[in-house]
């Protein structure tokens, strides 16, 4: 699918809103791919190294398509690498959930459950986007994400309903990640300007809630009631963690300005 098939909406405001929306989706996938890449060679079983690498590869693929497209819509001549490697922390538009450190395997699986559950509803909604690029991407991504979600479900069930230790760790993992849930379903700035193109995050919540509720109950776990919530990722307000992730990801590209790789 090529970015040139994007039906760029008329008007500068809408164009800016659309580029921002695409960046948000792209950055979510990119930053989570980066985090999952950290797992490779550290997974609990070699089979799991392969599974996590697969998910990272899918997310990276989504990010590349979305970044290329965001660059086109933005119209400043920035390609996928310019956007990935040359933006600073405050310019990233991802939700904070994807940037928090991996923690143990339970924290990572909690994050995978929350996020792939969200992405599944998101891409299903985008199947009917009036933007051909987004609809096309969604058709491919929804299959990938269905697999990511299934992978997370399998593990959350096993850790929740496994041993005492794994149950405790899994519940702790959920408790640790739940403050980052609200942000996923918050209406991002600009989405209102993109009717029928973007998906309203709030509209994804009921299906996500019922899916998550079932999995958590099956896994003999409880839905956490956090006392605080993350906010601001889509507007460029991040955790301190992102400021460590980005230099690692970007340093080599930035150390050789203009070089090709």
């Amino acid at each position, binding site marked *: 699918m090529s970015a040139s098939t994007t039906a760029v909406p008329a008007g500068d405001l809408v164009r800016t809103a659309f580029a921002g929306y695409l960046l948000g989706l792209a950055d979510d996938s990119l930053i989570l791919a980066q985090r999952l890449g950290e797992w490779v060679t550290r997974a609990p079983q070699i089979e799991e190294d392969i599974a996590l690498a697969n998910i990272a590869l899918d997310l990276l693929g989504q990010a590349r398509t979305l970044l290329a497209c965001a660059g086109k819509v933005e119209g400043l001549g920035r390609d996928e690498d310019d956007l990935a490697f040359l933006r600073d922390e405050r310019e990233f538009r991802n939700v904070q959930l994807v940037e928090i450190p991996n923690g143990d395997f339970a924290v990572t699986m909690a994050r995978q459950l929350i996020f792939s559950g969200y992405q599944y509803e998101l891409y299903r909604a985008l199947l009917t986007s009036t933007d051909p690029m987004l609809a096309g991407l969604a058709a491919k991504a929804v299959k990938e994400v269905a697999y990511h979600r299934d992978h997370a479900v399998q593990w959350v069930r096993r850790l929740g309903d*496994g041993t005492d230790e794994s149950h405790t760790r899994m519940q702790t993992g959920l408790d640790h990640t739940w403050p980052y849930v609200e942000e996923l379903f918050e209406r991002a700035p600009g989405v209102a300007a993109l009717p029928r193109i973007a998906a309203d995050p709030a509209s994804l919540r009921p299906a996500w809630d019922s899916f998550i509720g079932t999995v958590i109950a099956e896994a003999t776990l409880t839905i956490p009631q956090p006392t605080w919530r993350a906010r601001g990722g889509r507007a460029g307000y991040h955790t301190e963690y992102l400021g460590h992730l980005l230099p690692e990801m970007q340093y*080599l590209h930035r150390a*050789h300005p203009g070089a090709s790789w």
Partner: protein
Amino acid sequence: MHRGVDAPRTPAVGGSAAAEQAPAKPPDTGAHLQQRFDALIADDERIEPRDWMPTGYRKTLIRQIAQHAHSEIIGMQPEGNWITRAPSLRRKAILIAKVQDEAGHGLYLYSAAETLGVDREDLLDLLHEGKQKYSSIFNYPTLSWADMGAIGWLVDGAAIMNQVPLCRCSYGPYGRAMVRVCKEESFHQRQGFDILHTLSHGTPAQQAMAQDAVDRFWWPSLMMFGPPDERSAHTAQSTAWGIKRLGNDELRQRFVDICVPQARALDITLPDPDLRWNENRGHYDFGAVDWAELTRVIKGDGPCNEQRIQRRRSAHEEGAWVREAADAYARKHHNSSAAEALA
């Protein structure tokens, strides 16, 4: 002890010790079995897991396949070291896919080893305890992005050179695993060459980076073929058994002959002043390999030996609770697992 379809009937024990306890056949049929085995080898037929085989043959295979599997798994680390720092998203994707392939290779090979009556878990213990080796090349650090290129071009290149003859190994499951591995390896070598080619045609800093990586990886790559045949303890018997098809020195020479013109295409100098075409031999002559260095690194005194094993151990130990949880869940949900598998 849990064994595969192909595992032998005799009770096997962990690790390479399994071989020692392998088939204790009644003495009256022993000679007959040995004859049948010898005839299969002589006819260039494959030995399959449930066939009778000499203890030494089984033992040699277990050692070799396990070392090979360990090399694939440990080999993920030097390249995994650059996944988070790859300089473009395209290169990042390629590198993840490549490291993932190496994990797959390790699994194909452990699977082949398990047909000989050993358990992967036991082989991993032997690796973690330093009782089984892996290729010494992975004890060198990856210090720059260009090392991803040098590893793909030279290390995967040398591995392919070693592995292609193994596709015809007399032991069926090993040969079949090698066929799958070799199919995937050619992508590895090409992407490495492509990285170096891009760098050596890039900025002066990139060119220097590429040259430096090849300077560091060239000699250790030549060591990957093992010591000279006359010094190698295992070569003769392995050749007779059809496990090893070509000698260390012959493979090394082929590798050098192939690399020289490729290095020219890369505009990279191979770090060997003695490297020159020998008209009489029809091969490139090359300088003396520092075998003392190989011995030293194999014995544990390489820059990364400690670090590589430590990473493997900690991944394994920190993952123990996850594996136990999955086991506990499987026991609890034994009856529903078939239905769930399809869900």
